[in-house]
């Protein structure tokens, strides 16, 4: 029964958290700008609509193009099983954090190659940038993981991302949190690294890779991207917010996710996208912050 409940809440979060979070971000931005904005569930409607549509494939493309969205989504779904979405994860073992990072990398790899499969310079550009920026985000992620792993004494996400250490560990937590937040923004193509709302800008990263995908493929991609955001956000949430007894583990997570979405929306409303050549600097700063946090942890 417990297991059933776990799986059910998992499934619910997997299906609803991504679109809701994206919707909340848009809503926050609209609110800050003084507009009404689309409904919070709009991304879900989009996804459902896309699933029902047909598709157009370029004659240049091969099976790789078709494999991309599918495998990317599968990888993120698999990665989600280590994240304690429902109070505890589906699977947890020492070293699953690494697997988590590499599953996300798998998603990137297939998306990038699928983009290259179109033979368009536009999509090639996106793939190139994605590969570059995520390369710099990766060390920051691992460093943050390291500091959490040392602190918690385990290399599994479930145990790393739980509040502990007390006030004296606050500084290192904040630093890890900060660097992870930058990684989150970079990996999920949010402002200030990328602007998900613009299309046809020469500065885009993620959006431009998926230009040629349509129909169910695009739905998979959008959901996968949203899920990635949700997973990383939920890790952050687990790190700072203790379980709120009144809401239960799932409830507190959902609340936390909503809060994160609002924060992201606020960030996006308050700053402009960086120039592309500044992005590596931001990521290197995240690496430095993570290192510093690590030093504090080890002290």
């Amino acid at each position, binding site marked *: 029964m417990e297991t059933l409940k776990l799986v059910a809440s998992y499934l619910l979060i997997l299906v609803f958290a991504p679109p809701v979070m994206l919707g909340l971000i848009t809503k926050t931005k609209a609110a800050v700008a003084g507009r009404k904005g689309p409904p919070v569930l709009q991304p879900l409607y989009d996804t459902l609509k896309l699933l029902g549509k047909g598709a157009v494939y370029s004659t240049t493309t091969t099976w790789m193009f078709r494999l991309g969205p599918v495998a990317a989504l599968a990888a993120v779904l698999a990665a989600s099983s280590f994240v304690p979405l429902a109070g505890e994860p589906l699977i947890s073992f020492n070293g699953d954090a690494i697997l988590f990072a590499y599953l996300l990398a*798998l998603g990137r790899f297939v998306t990038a190659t699928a983009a290259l499969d179109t033979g368009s310079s536009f999509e*090639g550009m996106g793939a190139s940038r994605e590969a570059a920026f995520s390369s710099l985000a990766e060390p920051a992620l691992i460093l943050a993981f390291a500091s959490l792993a040392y602190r918690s004494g385990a290399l599994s996400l479930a145990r790393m991302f739980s509040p502990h250490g007390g006030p004296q560990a606050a500084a290192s937590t904040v630093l890890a949190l900060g660097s992870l937040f930058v990684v989150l923004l970079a990996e999920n193509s949010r402002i200030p690294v990328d602007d998900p709302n613009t299309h046809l800008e020469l500065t885009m990263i993620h959006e431009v890779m998926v230009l040629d995908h349509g129909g169910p493929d695009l739905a998979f991609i959008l959901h996968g991207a949203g899920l990635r955001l949700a997973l990383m956000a939920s890790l952050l949430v687990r790190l700072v917010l203790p379980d709120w007894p009144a809401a239960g583990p799932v409830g507190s997570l959902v609340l936390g996710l909503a809060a994160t979405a609002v924060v992201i929306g606020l960030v996006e409303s308050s700053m402009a996208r960086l120039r592309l050549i500044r992005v590596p600097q931001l990521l290197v700063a995240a690496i430095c912050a993570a290192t510093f946090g690590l030093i504090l942890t080890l002290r």
Partner: protein
Amino acid sequence: MILLLGAVLALGGAALLSSLASRHDRWARSAVIAGLAAAAIAGGTLAWRTIAGQRVSDLLWSWPVPGAAFHVGMDSLSACFLLLVLVVGCCAGLYGEGYLAGSHGHIPATPVRFFFLVLLGAMALLVAARNAFLFMIAWETMALAAFGLVSCEHGKPEVRKAGLLYLICTHVGSLFLLALFALLGRNAGSLEFSAFAAAPALSAAERVAVFLLALVGFGMKAGFMPLHIWLQEAHPAAPSHASAAMSGVMIEMGLYGLLRLLSLLGPVSIEAAFFLVALGLITAVFGITFAMAQRDFKRLLAYSSIENIGIILTGAGLGCYGLAKHHPSLALLGFAGAILHTLNHGLFKSLLFLSAGAVYQAVGTRDIEACGGLQKRLPWTCGLTAVGAAAICGLPPLNGFTGEWLIYNWLLRPDPGHGMLFSALAAAALALVGAFAVAAFSKYYGLTCLGQPRSEAARDAREPSWIMLGPMALLAALCVGIGLFPSPALHVAFAAAGDVAGQARPAVSASLDEWSRLLGAIGLLGAGVCALSALLWLFRGALLRRRKVGLGPTWSCGFTAPTARMQYTGSSYPMPLTRVFAAALATREEIRPPLGYWPVKASFESRTPDPALERWLPVLTAKFEEWLSAPRRLQYGRLQLYLLYVSAFLVITLLWKL
């Protein structure tokens, strides 16, 4: 041990037979295949038995050469590398037959067959050698055979240059090894490995000397930065199946040497272990950064070999740290990670070289910019390339992940103690390497196989024969297989690591069980990802069944006439990263920008030369040559001067010594 002799003799005999039958291609081919099969069966049986825990007694024949004895033995470490030699060697050898046939006489078949088999035989003997003299003979035979392979197309100047460079490097490395064994021999009073192990402890200075000599001697072969200079030149020069054997197995022999030495001499100091880890990471970051910037895809693969060697060295260094700290489980984990990655690298790198060879033969160039769109023409080759590329990036459902995961686990183990910051930074460096590998190999695979053909040759490319595809498919299957069911490979790696760390079987199997369980779970998850993908694929198929599925040109937000020339290129793809590392890469660019209102011609060309070879080495050698050429004027041609030398030498010696 007779089985090992049988394998070596089968390979050697096949080498001889194939060159004797050089006039009759079919006979030569049968000789090669028969030799490979016999060696695989004999050696495989032996390796399997050894790993399974059976004791195989050594073979010791006296040998009437000073210091020498024909002493071969087999332990798990040897067996593990023997297995690698045989698997990769047989696949590459089989593929080679197709490759030679497909080269239409551009590659001289007889020497390639001969040297290839000799290379395999020498490596099989090398891993079993238990006497320094025998070891050196096998080592040098291996090196020379590889030299023969590298320079078989010696009509081309760049091949000659690569051959010369390789020969020099390998010989210098061998000289260091000779000094190493001489030093060990002095201490032990014999050149037997067992005597090295039983010898009294070395003095501190001797230990440093041994460490440095071994590092340079074996590192030259393995390609530790900056001793790698020959690697990226020699691999493109050799025929592809030879590159596969060289990159997949031969350079690993350098690591075998280091591991064997560790197993004999025991732990190194903590500082040395740190140094090894640091060197490994530097090598890895260096290798992959340069791999990313290459245009020649075989050079790219060669640089990626440097990267992987770096990862393996990192693992070995971590093992050393464990040994030095008397922490057996850590030692075991580090070495097992290194060895597992060695095995994996052997498989996916040879797969990639073989598929690169097929592409090269189909397109006729190694330039990434001239490929593209091959997946439609060479579906099998490119599909297998995709597997290899994903595996080499260390992506989960494939084998590349397993070894790296062990190393990550070592580095991020929650074990407070000093050096943790170093460990974490090492893990971050490893992550950087992994991410760069994704960039490099999405470039390699994406730009050669996907998109539109960039040249006529790429448009007309043909799939190679089954004899080439078969071995590639086998290697790919092994990559996937190890990724999904890592336990057997992990078993091999732990058994070998136990030999290196000097631990008994029970202790090893306790560790093994723990990691095997975890990696088994990862394998299952990998299978889960595959199953999930398949489900989603079916789901999409079901969704689209009732809908209109159109075909058309690439849309790309409305590009009306996309041409092949507009695609992203091998230079532009990694540019966001190469720009970040511009100072280190020193890519040479030649830009002719479009000028005027009606620009006619514009061009952009970039080349990333190896810094050690083309920037640092010349500085050293120029000084050295200047210094060396000074005495050359002494041979001025005048007899009187010569007589003066004799007289002056005589008088000086008399005044000095009498």
